[in-house]
């Protein structure tokens, strides 16, 4: 199976050749990561530095993507923005998917009352529209990046739990679980060493799907005024206010952040799609 590290390079090449779209997505994602990591070194300007002599500069030699309403370099802000997007997006989807996976496996494994309770809880959370739930969480917890992460994480948990649960359910029926119990293996050992690795496929798929959703949700929240705060560089935040008001005279302010969001969500979706096709073609309920 692909969990062995030595097989990753050859597996990746096979993946790239057979699924060029997914590979394209992966490349974009990797560039995002590098941009985020190397932002300090590669960004030409300090993203927080206001320069009132250079407000609304069109894209040019000095500022590749132009400047915004405060004279801040848009290109640098996009680079640092990938940091915020990945930090918020990745934390939220990683913790959301992981927590959801745990709940799903526990629910499937222990069954009975616990299963019913968890299912009801997940149903309740699921019946809120995505953005409304995130909004309520932000309003409850207050402003701040950490709270935004939590707000985006909460709607993700039940979605992952549901998918992982159905996958784990089929595993639960398998004889090897009963055999392991008969042999006296602890619940923990069975869950961690036998069940979790086998739900890795749906888990990874949900994770990549969530990443795209998380970035979009963060952008929407920032746009509404409930997300990350100025002057933090964040793509959704860059689309708020001045970008829209000056959209006709300084379109670059709205175009580049929008493109960045679209491209990254696009990439995550393409990659996730192809990953799913590669790992489990039967899992098409997403």
């Amino acid at each position, binding site marked *: 199976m692909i969990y062995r590290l030595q097989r990753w390079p050859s597996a990746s090449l096979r993946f790239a050749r057979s699924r060029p779209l997914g590979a394209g997505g992966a490349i974009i994602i990797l560039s995002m990561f590098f941009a985020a990591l190397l932002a300090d070194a590669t960004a030409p300007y300090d993203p927080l530095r206001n320069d009132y002599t250079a407000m609304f500069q069109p894209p040019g030699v000095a500022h590749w993507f132009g400047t915004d309403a405060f004279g801040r370099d848009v290109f640098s802000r996009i680079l640092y923005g990938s940091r915020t997007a990945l930090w918020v997006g990745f934390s939220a989807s990683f913790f959301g998917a992981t927590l959801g996976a745990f709940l799903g496996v526990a629910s499937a494994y222990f069954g009975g009352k616990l299963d019913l309770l968890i299912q009801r809880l997940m*149903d309740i959370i699921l*019946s*809120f*529209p*995505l953005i409304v739930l995130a909004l309520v969480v932000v309003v409850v917890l207050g402003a701040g990046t950490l709270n935004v992460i939590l707000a985006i994480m909460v709607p993700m948990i039940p979605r992952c739990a549901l998918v992982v649960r159905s996958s784990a359910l089929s595993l639960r029926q398998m004889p090897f679980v009963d055999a392991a119990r008969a042999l006296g293996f602890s619940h923990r050992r069975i869950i961690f060493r036998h069940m979790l690795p086998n739900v890795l496929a749906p888990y990874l798929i949900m994770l990549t799907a969530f990443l795209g959703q998380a970035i979009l949700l963060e952008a*929407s929240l920032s746009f*509404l005024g409930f997300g990350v705060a100025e002057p933090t560089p964040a793509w959704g935040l860059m*689309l708020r206010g001045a970008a829209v008001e000056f959209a006709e005279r300084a379109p670059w302010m709205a175009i580049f952040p929008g493109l960045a*969001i679209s491209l990254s969500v696009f990439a995550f979706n393409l990659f996730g799609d192809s990953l799913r096709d590669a790992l489990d073609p039967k899992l*098409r309920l997403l």
Partner: protein
Amino acid sequence: MRQYILKRLLLMIPTLLGVAVLVFLMLRVVPGDIVEMKYAGTGAFAPKEAIERERAQLGLDRPLWQQFLDWMWGIVRFDFGNSMWTGRSISYEIWIRLELSLELALLATLVAILLSIPLGTLAALKQDTWVDYFVRIFSIAGLAVPSFWLGILIILGFLIFFKWLPPLTFTSFWVDPKANLMQIIWPALAVGYRYSAVATRMTRSAVLEVLREDYIRTARAKGLWERVVLIRHALKNALLPVITVIGLEFAFLIGGLVVTEQVFNLNGIGMLFVESITRRDYTMTQALVLLVSFAFIFTNFIVDLLYAWLDPRIRYQ
């Protein structure tokens, strides 16, 4: 079968109750209450006694369990109470916005279906060709582009190239269909495009799977005209999961289009939602959440019923 339906209907009640309790508690945990929000005006005085009086009048000073029971008692009699912000009946406030939200949801769903089924089928037929790639890219783009960005671009496009703006005030379809559609069609397209993404992919994989089935091969071998084969067999079986997905999302189209409504200035349920949350209008938020949850749970139920009815294997589980 009857037992199955009954069981499902009964299961709805604890779920709804859970939603009610959850939203009730969540709102009360939120800092600030509606009286504070009302006085969050333009820097004027907010006399303490007036705030206390208001709170008492809205019943906010009573113990929590009492407020909850009062509210539940009202729900049982289909009385949602009054909005804490305007004082008008909540049913009225929702009613005047429901027509627009429903219409938008229906049109968006129509757009999604009209886009996803032909495109998904096409992509499946021409799998792994550039047509397939194009369709997949096109549909994922719908998911990737932020809806508010798309909305802004649409409005700006109209203003710059046509010097025209869709009407900002709502006229009912029954009063003036043209004015009504001129306003709703653009957000419906933006939203529908977004929702078609998932459905397109599902149609594609469903058609692919069915195309591999034995009976299709037999039909082809018998020499039936390929189009007939396709339409009659593959599509019918592929439709089910697609309708499922579209149906499930429908409930959220009613209350979840918060950003779209803001950008296109639609007086819909989504805006009401955001406003009631920011105003801490407990009664209104609770009512809206219950409504959307109920719609979601109910559509889930209908879809499950459809599945059970169409696929006898599930029925006898």
